[in-house]
């Protein structure tokens, strides 16, 4: 069983998709490391792949660790390095 997960884009990632989102297909209980590889496959730009290395995946509640299971039903975002203020 696999599922479609839509990843919302922020910051510098926005330039890589006009919809500010990229959908990936994941096994039912995939972890974040698996999501990261699937997401990388969708990127055609080398700068985008480099940015991905220093970016984090998060739900609306919290940043996810690499070993965490990608939660079903939750909105998932890719967060490049931050610089508020």
């Amino acid at each position, binding site marked *: 069983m696999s599922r479609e997960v839509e990843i*919302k884009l*922020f*910051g*510098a990632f*926005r330039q890589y998709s006009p919809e500010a989102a990229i959908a990936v297909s994941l096994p039912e209980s995939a972890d974040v490391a698996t999501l990261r590889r699937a997401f990388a496959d969708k990127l055609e730009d080398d700068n985008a792949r480099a940015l991905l290395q*220093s*970016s*984090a995946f*998060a739900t*609306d*509640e*919290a*940043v*996810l*660790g690499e070993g*965490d299971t990608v939660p079903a039903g939750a909105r998932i*975002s890719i*967060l*490049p*390095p*931050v*610089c*508020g*203020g």
Partner: protein
Amino acid sequence: MTIHVATKDEVLSTEAALAHCSAPGHGAADLFIGRVRDLNQGRQVRAVSYDLHPVLCNNVFREICKEARQEWGESLHFWLEHRQGRLAVGEASVVIAVSSPHRDESFRACRYLVEQMKHRAPIWKQEHYVDGDSEWVKGHALCSHG
């Protein structure tokens, strides 16, 4: 409510921040305001576009305030608002304020909020330069605090 956090797409109010950060028992308040600078790393800046993740931002802001409240006192009042959208040079991007019985707590907690916000809140800025170019500013990689 002693903690107020928000993301806004309109002008930030320092008056509202200082009104919130006050109490008959509070002898001190410290307020920080971050503004768009005309120069960054040698490049002339005309404006900055702030992108942010509103829901997660508010969660992170609130978490940071709670940490400060635990560290410096349950009675303290906190205010943290961050702007989104395109801002001209001089406009306020963030207003942070804390009030407390004595001044040391206000200064320390306010500084804590500023530093933690910069390192942990999902906010990104794209600088628009006078020469017409624009660039996303490099930042701090987030990590899981689970």
